[in-house]
């Protein structure tokens, strides 16, 4: 699972839809993997306004990347290719191959195996 996807995914349990603590989901025992992808500055510029920066900082911290700037790069900072390359590397090329995603509200654990997260719920939680 890419880091960018982790920034968009929420807990699937019904009660967590409205809870503040259910986002972002927290990584536990994550094993990381780096996969080369073509650099796309356009895509990064398109997606960045929708990224929840606070959540990204939390996620990056859990995955062991401490060097994330405090605020989201905006405006002219987006013309800097190095910034975009760093973002590309973190958001798109970093994958979580194995591990767990845990909801901060209900504590439900979503297993990640071979990069595929299991979001099937037992029917009483839907």
């Amino acid at each position: 699972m890419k880091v960018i996807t982790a920034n968009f995914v929420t807990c699937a349990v019904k009660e967590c839809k409205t809870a503040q603590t259910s986002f972002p989901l927290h990584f536990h025992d994550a094993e990381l993997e780096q996969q080369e992808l073509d650099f796309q500055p356009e895509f990064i510029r398109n997606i960045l306004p929708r990224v929840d920066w606070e959540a990204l900082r939390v996620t990056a911290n859990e995955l062991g990347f401490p060097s994330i700037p405090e605020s989201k790069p905006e405006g002219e900072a987006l013309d800097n290719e190095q910034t975009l390359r760093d973002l590309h590397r973190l958001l798109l090329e970093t994958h979580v191959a194995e591990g767990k995603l845990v909801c901060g509200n209900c504590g439900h654990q979503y297993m990640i195996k071979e990069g595929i997260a299991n979001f099937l719920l037992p029917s009483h939680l839907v």
Partner: protein
Amino acid sequence: MSRPEDILPPDLFYNDNESRKYTTSSRIRNIQADMTNRALDLLDLKSPSLILDIGCGSGLSGEILSEVTEEEGGPHTWVGMDISPSMLDVALQREVEGDLFLADIGQGVPFRPGAFDAAISISAIQWLCNAETSDVSPEGRLRRFFEGLYASLRRGGRAVCQFYPKNDAQRSMISGAAIKAGFGAGILEDDPGTKNSKLYLVLTVGGGGLHGDITGVVDGMDGVNVLDARRKAMELGNARARSPRKGDKNWIINKKEQMAKKGKVVKQNSKYTGRKRRTAF
């Protein structure tokens, strides 16, 4: 032809064997590629976007999304959801670029509001019309899916879902559920009346710069049936007067066209077609 939907639930039907067959059959691959390209045309994406692939299976359509050239506004990044572990396993072996989720779309779409630019679904949502256990209903599954999808798309985003309804009831159940969730919905039918007929449900979130019809994409296309609840109320009066009743001129012409398409010999239309005979003296 038998429908896989009637045989088993999707996670069981697409077992290792079926998934492999589905992915290696060149006939299915071609059809799937055609439908994906058609859906991409309808989405009309101008820049590299984040796309949700609903029922992504082995990533046949995802591959096409990743391969869109820069001139055409690509390549797109996609996230796929599917309920069949075997299908996702095949996707892993084929090393697709998108992120994969094992999830049941009938349980909702677990993404943050406004996350995606667009959504695409090829031959998947008719599965929602089957409830496999007694504690869920097709209506509930459709409602959760469309509500989740509506929330996860950004304003002005679009979704194109190709589907195979079993009958008209399923077709209206699916489009009705989409409209109820808040989408502007239109149904586009390619090759209507033939064996190759394909239905596309075109959905829009919020109207940004749309004109003409509610979807803004099917403008000027033939064979389009736009479902717009807002317009419907207004047109109800007119529609009643216009709808072809059995036996009137429009109905007869329609029937003759159908028969002609089947290759039957049909009398030519004239000014006398469908006209009442004068009462006998």
